[in-house]
């Protein structure tokens, strides 16, 4: 297994940046987990119900960033076979089966997570031993649990969660068909099913109607539920919006630029739409949470929001890189035919512009709904 990891030496800037991103996010999550442990250690007196609840609440606050790291790991792992198809073909030819390839990807991610976790632990220990003073006069002491000694088993268990989650997410995200040597012409265009279209129209529409009616009537819980449904529905509708935009671009008798841009948008609607939907929904939910929760929580929510934003943007970056690799393969025949590079670049530009418009529309709608809630 370690011999396989030597392959990482061939990685280029994008792969290395994703490695670093995963490690940094893991370090931040590890710091949050250790903070919960520190609070639990530093509370005086024996275990009590209130104490357990407070510790549990702090651990629960670690869940959103953990989910972010898992999502990033999954996106990262999925993009590797598509971006590095030559390497994958070589590994398959060398006799590595699907299980071993998945294990390889999972171990790679888990190592990045573990490296980040160790970094977080080192920072925590440095703060605990006052080698490093972030905030003067020991104001961090309760969070660091300086009065009690750090239990090794609890720390190890807590910190093992991050690489374990990253590795499992990576292994689960890689589908067996991604590990086949790719043949672009066999990938069928995914069309939106009528059920999905109905859901993409009805859920945000009904949710928004319920939310606005409830806000007018003053029933807060109904408004919140309706708003959450509407925001989720907007996320659900993002791939359909991309698909529809692509279809509109390619309708009639388009010139090559518009044709390639529109059809490309249609073909990548789900691949690109999913991370965009996650970005929209998580942004809107963060806005709702910021407006609803009392502001006196310290810098923690801001740190968490930044961490999640980092993970979501990293996943989006991985997906864009994956799509670019796919596009390069499918446009190889066009270059063979003598299509000028400027045409392909222009098509990519039109596609990016249309995607931005869709993102702005969806994000604007979600933001309006979130603002109505707050």
């Amino acid at each position: 297994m370690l011999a396989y990891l030597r392959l990482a030496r061939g990685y280029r800037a994008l792969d290395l940046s994703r490695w670093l991103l995963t490690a940094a996010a893991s370090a931040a999550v590890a710091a949050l987990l250790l903070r919960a442990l520190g609070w639990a250690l530093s509370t005086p007196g024996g275990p009590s119900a209130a104490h357990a609840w407070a510790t549990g609440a702090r651990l629960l606050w670690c869940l959103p960033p953990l989910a972010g790291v898992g999502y990033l790991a999954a996106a990262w792992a999925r993009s590797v076979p598509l971006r590095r198809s030559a390497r994958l073909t070589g590994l398959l030819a060398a006799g590595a089966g699907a299980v071993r390839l998945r294990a390889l990807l999972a171990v790679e991610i888990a190592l990045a997570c573990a490296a980040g976790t160790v970094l977080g632990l080192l920072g925590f220990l440095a703060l605990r031993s006052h080698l490093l003073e972030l905030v003067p006069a020991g104001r961090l002491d309760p969070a660091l649990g300086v009065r009690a000694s750090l239990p090794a088993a609890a720390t190890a268990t807590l910190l093992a969660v991050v690489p374990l989650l990253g590795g499992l997410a990576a292994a689960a995200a890689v589908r067996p068909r991604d590990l086949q040597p790719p043949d672009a012409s066999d990938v069928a265009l995914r069309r939106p099913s009528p059920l999905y279209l109905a859901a993409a129209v009805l859920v945000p529409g009904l949710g928004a109607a319920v939310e606005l009616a409830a806000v007018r009537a003053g029933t807060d819980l109904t408004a919140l539920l309706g708003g959450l449904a509407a925001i989720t529905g907007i996320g659900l509708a993002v791939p359909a919006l991309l698909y529809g935009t692509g279809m509109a671009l390619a309708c009639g008798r388009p010139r090559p630029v518009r044709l390639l841009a529109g059809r490309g948008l249609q073909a990548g609607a789900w691949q690109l739409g999913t991370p965009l939907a996650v970005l929209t929904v998580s942004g809107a939910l963060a806005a709702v949470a910021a407006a609803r929760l009392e502001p006196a929580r310290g810098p923690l929510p801001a740190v968490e929001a930044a961490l999640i934003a980092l993970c979501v943007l990293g996943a989006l970056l991985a997906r864009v890189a994956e799509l670019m690799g796919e596009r390069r393969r499918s446009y190889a025949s066009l270059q063979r035919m003598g299509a000028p590079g400027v045409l392909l670049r222009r098509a990519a530009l039109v596609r990016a512009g249309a995607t931005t418009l869709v993102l702005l529309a969806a994000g604007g709608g979600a933001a309006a709904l979130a603002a109505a809630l707050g």
Partner: protein
Amino acid sequence: MSRNRSADQSFYRQKQHLDREDPVTTAPPDNDVLWARALVKAHQGTPALRGVSIGVREGEVLAVTGPRGSGKTSLLDCLSGLSSPDQGEIWFNSSPVHTLARAARERLRRERFGYVGTEPHLVPELTAAENVALAPLLAGATRKEAATAAAEWLERLDVADCAKLRPAELRQDQRQRIAVARALAHGPSVVFADEPTAPLHREARDQVMRILVAAARSHRITLLLATHDPAVARYADRVAAMADGRLATPIGARQALAASAPQPPAAAGATAASALPPKPPQTAPGPTPQPLTPQPPASPAQTSPPPTPQPQTSPPPKTAKTPTSLEEDPDRCSPTSV
């Protein structure tokens, strides 16, 4: 027939820089549309071409035969302007190709050349009609002309009912036919076909080759064919054997066939027939059932062409006037007459 096709096609810009005579260098023979001299090409140190010279006559079907790795693809890539040779000259219509910049070579490829590869390599997100229409669009046709040409070529290649489908929904032979249509739809001067029948079964192979060659004849398209299959080389006027990056002088197809069929024909036919039981005829509208193996001449010394029991199963005729299944009315289905 003079080459004035591009003059009467509204969508072809005049390529004067390519048709201009160069006063300094000796002009190639008039009937050579494409010729190369002493081409040398290496891929990262591995020699692919070691001094290849070739002259392709206008309107002919020239097959380059040879085993895998003999340099056929490298030769086609150099001649079509996809890659530059390390040494040597390439001339197209009396103007140099080897000195052209990348943009000019791209323009040459999209306007004057067509290409069919081993794999169809269609753009997966475009429909069949859009894939075909892309070639005339890139060559400068209007949208209407491109759509008409695409529809007509799909019709000629018996895949008109697939026009709205995407490559993933099609069979491999249908995809290859669409690739052939794409190579022909913009009315190129030269079509390069690099093992075009490699992914196909025999029936589809014969049909695709017949259509390709018949289209080349009827539109005065020069067809340069790379193949290792003697049954495909049979469709050529001349055959040039290639080995280890060197090319032999092209010889007539009949001599090449005689040279490449040393074993008795009866035994060869029996082996093939026992290895492959006859299949039911294809249900596509165009073709009649094909013989499983091409019938080589009875003896190498025989001077008659390969026996052709039916016109439709024969290799295409050597002149454009003989009728084939494809061109009962060339004017009606010629997409370049729009």
